């Protein structure tokens, strides 16, 4: 075991899925490698290790981020959500359930990243964020309809080489509808 803190290592505490993980990390260690190699949270995948494929997508303070481009030491004090933190006990997150029901995957390796991205996309859209294909970007226009085109644009940072995009988009749309209904019910 490396020393707690030294010129090459630091003792940090990561806050992941609501739990605190104290560990000593090599300063070169990425958040992705800390999750996979040190904390046995292997649900977050390494597809390219250089920010090009989206397989390592996690949520940092609620926003999506590619964990391969974050150093573990810089993630201290942030709230990190990984695929392991999406379900509530045995109850899958609606996005997870939609991926399962509509076969929104094949090999499954991009899936955790796709799901983390989709969860954030639905939130970003609900909060009124426009995308490159949004026609009316004025703040007062409100969120555009979450069409297939909008979903495709917003999910394009997540590659799926099996080519399951069609069913992934259908799964995101279904989960977004469920989310909208829940939000309506909550505000009614």
């Amino acid at each position: 075991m490396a020393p707690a803190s030294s010129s090459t290592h630091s003792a940090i505490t990561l806050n992941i899925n609501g739990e605190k993980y104290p560990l000593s990390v090599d300063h070169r260690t990425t958040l992705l490698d800390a999750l996979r190699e040190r904390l046995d949270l292997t649900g977050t995948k390494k597809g390219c290790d250089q920010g090009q494929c989206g397989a390592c997508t996690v949520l940092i303070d609620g926003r999506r981020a590619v964990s391969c481009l974050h150093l573990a030491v810089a993630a201290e004090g942030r709230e990190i959500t990984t695929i392991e933190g999406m379900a509530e006990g045995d109850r899958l997150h609606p996005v997870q359930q939609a991926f399962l029901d509509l076969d929104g995957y094949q090999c499954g390796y991009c899936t955790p990243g796709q799901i983390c991205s989709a969860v954030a996309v639905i939130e970003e859209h609900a909060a009124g964020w426009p995308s490159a294909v949004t026609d009316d970007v004025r703040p007062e226009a409100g969120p555009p309809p979450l069409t297939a085109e909008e979903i495709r644009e917003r999910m394009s940072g997540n590659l799926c080489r099996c080519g399951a995009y069609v069913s992934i988009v259908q799964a995101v749309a279904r989960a977004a509808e469920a989310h909208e209904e829940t939000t309506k019910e909550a505000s009614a």
Partner: protein
Amino acid sequence: MTTATTGRTTVKGAVGTAHTRVEGRDKVTGAARYAGEIPFADLAHGWLVLSTVARGRIRSVETGPVLDMPGVLTVLHHGNAPRLTTDYVGMLGIPDPTAALFQHDRVPHVGWPVALVVAETPEQAREAAEALVVTYEREPHDTALVAAHPDAYAADGHMPAVTEKGDLEAELAASAHVVDAEYTTPEEHHSMMEPHAATARWDGGRLEIVDSNQGASWVQSELAKLFSLDESAVRVRSEHVGGGFGSKGVRAHQVSAAMAATTLQRPVRVVLTRRQMFSLTGYRSPTVQRVRLGADPDGRLRALEHRSLNQTSTVYEFVEPSAGVARVMYDADAHRTANHVVRLDVPSPTWMRAPGEAPGSFALEAALDELAERCGVDPIDLRLRNEPETGPVSGLPFAGRNLAACFREGARRFGWADRDPRPGLRRDGRWLLGTGTAAASFFAGAGPSTALVTAEADGGFTVRIAAADIGTGARTALTLVAADALEVTPERVRVRIGDSDFGPAMIAGGSMGTRSWAWAVTAAARELRERLALGTDIPPEGITVRSDTTEALGALAQKERHSYGAQFAEVAVDTATGEVRVRRMLGIFAAGTIVNPLTARNQLVGGMTWGISMALHEEAVRDRNTGGHYGPDLAGYHVATHADVPLVEADWVEDHDPDDPVGIKGVGEIGIVGAAAAIANAVWHATGVRHRSLPIRPDRVLSAGTGASRA
């Protein structure tokens, strides 16, 4: 002890009913562990060092300074690595020496493995690998595939190099319409999302490898031969596999991990980086193809010639048999096909989704479209007029050829009847619109497999087979097949795969996996059901039946067995930017019994998505000066992403292989075949310009202009 039978009420019908993946929950929660994710105590990490020259010899590997770096345990290279045996014939032929690491000082291409640095942590291994100095004696290299390469030669590969009948020149001369065109396809990479990864360790006298591969028993057998071990002394496990597409066989990751585990006598993991994958894991060779067609005024073919050239490495001959598709698809009075290769200072190519058919169908089906234009015949009618009665080259009967049914159903659903065949007429703002079609076929084969099916004392059933689920849904498909053969509900069946201890089995490749494994599972399950029907008592350890399909497959009648399909695409071409966008695609397939409609549709759509990617995006470019790639990563090598893929629909017509116990033909590859041609044909219909080189990049579209602007 329980007395269990398969149940008095007969349960059937699992096959053909949509079923979500049995491992789906594990995949959506992140619980599914892939090869690089299984924890091992005392694990060391290996990092490969690759050559920076394209041809030459290693002069020195300066290990001294690196061995002094923190955490470094060893550096393996040609001077100290264990010796391997390579003069054997494996399941798929002689081994590609690319996997025989560190056996000599020769360097045959950029990115050839020259050393493995092993350290306590991945960070230490990577830093030391990047610091390792290797010096070379350089030699001049040649990495450029050109049409008239003087060193090209006809090569067999997995089919005869050349087939010919009739007098080609005479029939061409007698033809009313002739097409003579050259088509090219670029170097393409599998780029599955999970990089190749393996952990090796010695455990109780056995070499254990946790790996990501397309066939656990295949990799076990190859590693045993390479390391001169008894097969029983090697165990390979590969439970979840993050994509394969032909690339996940015996590669540098398993071999180097096994070498290091042997040297260090502790577990060692080697994970390839994305950039390393571009030179170490195979690829689809670029092709240069020439097609000559001659036809009567009504489009009936008098002459068909399809020639293809691909590159291979200097250490291994791999043939991309692009001319093979013509041997199945169309007959002509004079018929000639030939596959050629040329050896260059490049990595060895390998099988990649629809090897031969994918690039071959692009050239042939684009040429057919050109012929339809010349003849003034509808492209679908042209194909239907040239439907052969028997195999054009083999003369064998077809085991079902439902191509016409695919075209009829596809044309109806796509709205083909309303199509104006003239190009360059349809506009939507700045976009020119067009539609195109193409035919598809892919060989339906099966390989010998063994399966174990156990009736458990608790009333359940366990199937064990060294199958691989690389995203195909094989685990789920076999659950349904076993349930029907046992006449129980799928919930009572548990399928275990990806372990060489389950016995020899076919690989997940050539669209043959599910058919081969389903045959073995069906055979064992049926025999077990017959035994249980006698009311046998089930002991605590269960009753197990083992099957082996070697004999049954050997007795299979010789026929032309293929899946077929009709591909349709609508594209929009931006004449200002040169951008091509696919607006919709439809594929109708005749692919035998569809075991699980949910996953099969997804896989067919995935193949068509590969077709979009092949037509418009994928291209690995090699620098002639260095012999290496420009941008060998997922930013430099583009695969289709969400925004590139519109609503792609796949469906099928009734089809069944009469000689297969389940009627399966296979769906893994047929989806990509013809897809790029349909898109290219649609681009012509939109613009009036033929694009005979893939990918159809914006710069190519812009420099070619449009038929209208040239007129």
